């Protein structure tokens, strides 16, 4: 049964997804749109599994003091810190967000609380007023988090940010706040630059690898090398410049021909080949010939 039930599920789901593509029955078509959503939910569990595995592997490395265990410590700390910040700070606080204060009584209340907090005589009084504001107006001001609320109220009191807006919100009272989100900060200023750096150094590796490995050893290799050289030189400004000086050497045209004719033909063949491959693999899975996804050989 441990084999048969998953096979039946795979077969029936696969057939249903094929059938919904051809049927005009709306209910079945809707099912075809709902089922992919389940994929996202299953994907969530897969992330949880991957996380558990990652923690176990690196936890073991640390406990055994394997070579390079320090990197595992950094990895787990970074992982925990990023997840913690991601859970603590809501995604919608990523960007500057306008808060509508259309109700005059709410507007008056916000201004009054901002004034009182700005004039607080002690830290204790300020905290009490912030708590009061959070319970009264937290939702209105876009956050119940003390730090965000305090910043918003101070900006309100100092700059009078509540104003009648022009443009898309014409006539409405809008209060714009810019949030600092540490999770977003990590994403923007740590993850993104690191990723850009990783890709940037590829140019150096490509140059070094091309020097060491790109040899015209066979006829096919020589053809590939010649095509690569024509495309590399023809696609950049230097190719066009060369053609403007040496009229009988149309490097841009040659590279365009290579891309448009042999390349397009080969790419099309690859696309058709992979489509046929996908169909054949899918049929094997649906018919139960392919069972590696169940852990069988």
């Amino acid at each position, binding site marked *: 049964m441990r084999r048969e039930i998953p096979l039946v599920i795979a077969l029936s789901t696969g057939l249903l997804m094929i059938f919904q593509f051809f049927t005009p029955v709306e209910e079945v078509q809707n099912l075809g749109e709902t089922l992919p959503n389940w994929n*996202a939910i299953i994907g969530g569990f897969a992330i949880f599994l991957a996380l558990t595995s990652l923690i176990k592997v690196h936890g073991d490395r640390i406990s055994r003091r394997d070579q390079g265990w320090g990197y595992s410590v950094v990895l787990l700390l970074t992982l925990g810190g990023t997840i913690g910040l991601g859970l603590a700070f809501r995604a919608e606080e990523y960007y500057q967000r306008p808060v509508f204060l259309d109700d005059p009584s709410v507007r008056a209340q916000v201004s009054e609380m901002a004034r009182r907090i700005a004039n607080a005589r002690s830290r204790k009084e300020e905290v009490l007023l912030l708590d009061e504001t959070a319970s009264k107006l937290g939702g209105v001001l876009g956050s119940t988090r003390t730090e965000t609320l305090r910043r918003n109220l101070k900006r309100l009191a100092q700059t009078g940010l509540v104003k009648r807006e022009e443009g898309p919100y014409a006539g409405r009272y809008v209060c714009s706040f810019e949030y600092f989100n540490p999770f977003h900060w990590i994403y923007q200023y740590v993850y993104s630059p690191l990723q850009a750096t990783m890709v940037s150094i590829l140019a150096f590796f490509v140059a070094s690898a091309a020097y060491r490995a790109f040899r015209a050893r066979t006829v096919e290799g020589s053809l590939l090398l010649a095509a690569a050289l024509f495309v590399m030189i023809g696609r950049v400004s230097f190719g066009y410049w060369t053609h403007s000086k040496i009229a009988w050497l149309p490097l841009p045209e040659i590279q365009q021909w290579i891309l448009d004719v042999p390349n397009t033909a080969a790419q099309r063949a690859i696309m058709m080949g992979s489509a046929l491959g996908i169909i054949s693999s899918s049929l094997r899975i649906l018919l139960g010939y392919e069972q590696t996804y169940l852990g069988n050989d």
Partner: protein
Amino acid sequence: MHWIDRVKNVDRRIIYLLVLIAASVPLLKPLDLPIDISPDAQRIYDHLDSLSSGSLVMMSFDYDAGSRAEVHPMAEAVAEHCISRGLKILAPALWTQGPSMANELFSKMQKVHPDLVYGRDYVTLGYFVGPTQGDPQVKALMSDLVSAYPRDTRGNQTKDLPIMQNLHSSLDLKLVLSLSAGDPGISAWVRQGADEYHVTLAGGSTAIQTPSLLPFVDSGQMLGILGGLKGAAEYEKLMKKPGLGTSGMDAQSVVHLVIIVFILLANSVYAYEKFILKRI
């Protein structure tokens, strides 16, 4: 050590240094090399130029920081063209870093065009998770954009935004431009956007990905494709506004030349060894 072995085993740090010099000198002192216009860039430019003011254009930000250097310049050039023509831009993203790229671009545009109004002239819709990545993402965006994005990146209800009032179906989009660095990206937009929902589709992609997408242009499923920095430089030339693409092309030209010299040198040594030394 024989001179051939020296050439063959040249320290890789020397290669790195030469590539670094080749990339940085033209950036500091541009060479102003000429740029030719490809038919693809010309078609995309002409199509946008023919649209009436107020038409809706979708620019999908399907790239990240790793491909920013190649794709962002063309995004800037096309956005500049759209804004100068009075076209309205909807900016979804199929990649998680796409919204950051869109926000960066529109912040810059906002400074260049102070009259630009968020919600009226453009909207950044953020990352769309979708049921699964790729085709289902695009299908959901094309079938009902407002349901896919009930709120934009600023927390506004998208259905209330002035820019959305003229969007009744995907056919109201006069051009969809997928700025893509891989999957999900242009292929999904072709299968769902162009084939299923019949939108006019153009693409902007990294140079390495462009050859694999050319069959879609050849078959007429796409209007055209801007490939890598060259695509950006071509569009900037059409706009008569040199930018990041134009300055980057000089650097790319010189780096390509250096790599070609390396390849030719290595192959000359290989040929000398194989055909001449063996005879001695």
